[in-house]
């Protein structure tokens, strides 16, 4: 059962990655990175279960944390760059 979950997760990650690559606007790319991040969190939790090692979950927690902070960082960068040079966002 868990292996099916892992495969599904991988499939969605590939989809998110392709969205990140060809996403027309920048916001698609940020969205894709966000989705990718949460999927990796799930992947690590499930893989931790597959191998029967409970301490993988700390890493999954750090992932979720880092994912949140990098999305905020990106948005902060946007707020900042929009004020400075109005013209150039896509």
């Amino acid at each position, binding site marked *: 059962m868990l292996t099916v979950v892992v495969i599904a997760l991988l499939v969605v*990650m*590939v989809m998110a*990655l392709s969205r*990140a*690559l060809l996403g027309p606007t*920048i916001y698609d*790319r*940020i969205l894709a*990175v966000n989705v*990718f*991040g949460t999927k*990796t969190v799930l*992947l*690590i939790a499930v*893989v*931790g279960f597959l191998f029967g*090692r409970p*301490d*993988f979950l*700390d*890493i999954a*927690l*750090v*992932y979720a*944390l*880092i*994912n*949140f*902070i*990098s999305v*905020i*960082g*990106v*948005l*902060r*960068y946007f*707020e*900042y*760059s929009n*004020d*400075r*040079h109005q013209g*150039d966002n896509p």
Partner: protein
Amino acid sequence: MLLLLAITALAIAWLRDLFAAVMLAGIYGLLSASFFVSVDAVDVAFTEAAVGAGIFPLLMLAALALVGRNEQTAYRRPLISLLLVSITGAALVLGTLDMPAFGSADAPPHNHVAVRYIEESPKEIGIPNMVTSVLADYRSFDTLGEVVVVFTAAMGVLGLLFTGRAASPGSATERANMYDHRVLRVVSKMLIPLILLFALYVQFHGEYGPGGGFQAGVIFAAGIILYAMLFGFGNAQRVVRPALLQILAACGVLIYGSVGVVCLLSGGNFLDYSQLLPDPLVGRHVGILVIELGVGITVASAMILIFYAFASATVNSEEVA
């Protein structure tokens, strides 16, 4: 898994827009961390996630905010470099031909030095996490070197960017931070104590699960940077003053070094913890805990100092621009 990595790497090479390249570099870090997990490298996955997917994109974005996003120039002399790269690649592939197969248990590295780490370290040092035992005890001088590298980077950045003048609260960075994001501010007010608590958990959990001084320092710094991003660098610097951070960074390295010196004075070699207390095993525990603390303090203060320097650089560039 590796295929995903390869795709992202090629995409980064091909992309022109810097911003997307940084985002993909973040994904690349995340992917390599998940590869590390699938190859049982737990501690390394932890660090790579915290650094490769966390701090690296943040640093890049902070720099991009100053430098501008698009990349005009075309490639320079692509053919010669392609040739050079393929020669080095061929030499590398040639090198791997005689190497033992991937994951084979009888390869030399597994049965020479590592045997002792795996067999004796639980008994000799008494902590389950072998990586921390090797990191903090068998090869603790490497970790001292690692702490000094972080300290040097902080000093270098300090020398280059820091004008020593903290961004006054009323300055431009205030306007730019996310005042209107009411939801974000409320949520992060709730989250930041949780993050800092988690950092402390990771710090002192280093012996039993993945974690340790360095990862804790990075998470601690990420928490403070989140606060700084949302509430502006001005009052973030009022909360954690840069001068205090410089002292903290220096103290972290000194803590680590003085543990070594104390072992020296009490008869053993440098960094030989068994001399710390009459009972060698407990001495080792205390030694490892203290140096993890030293690593955590230095890394956290160094990372925050670097971000303050980048923030203060944005302030001057505004005056300049």
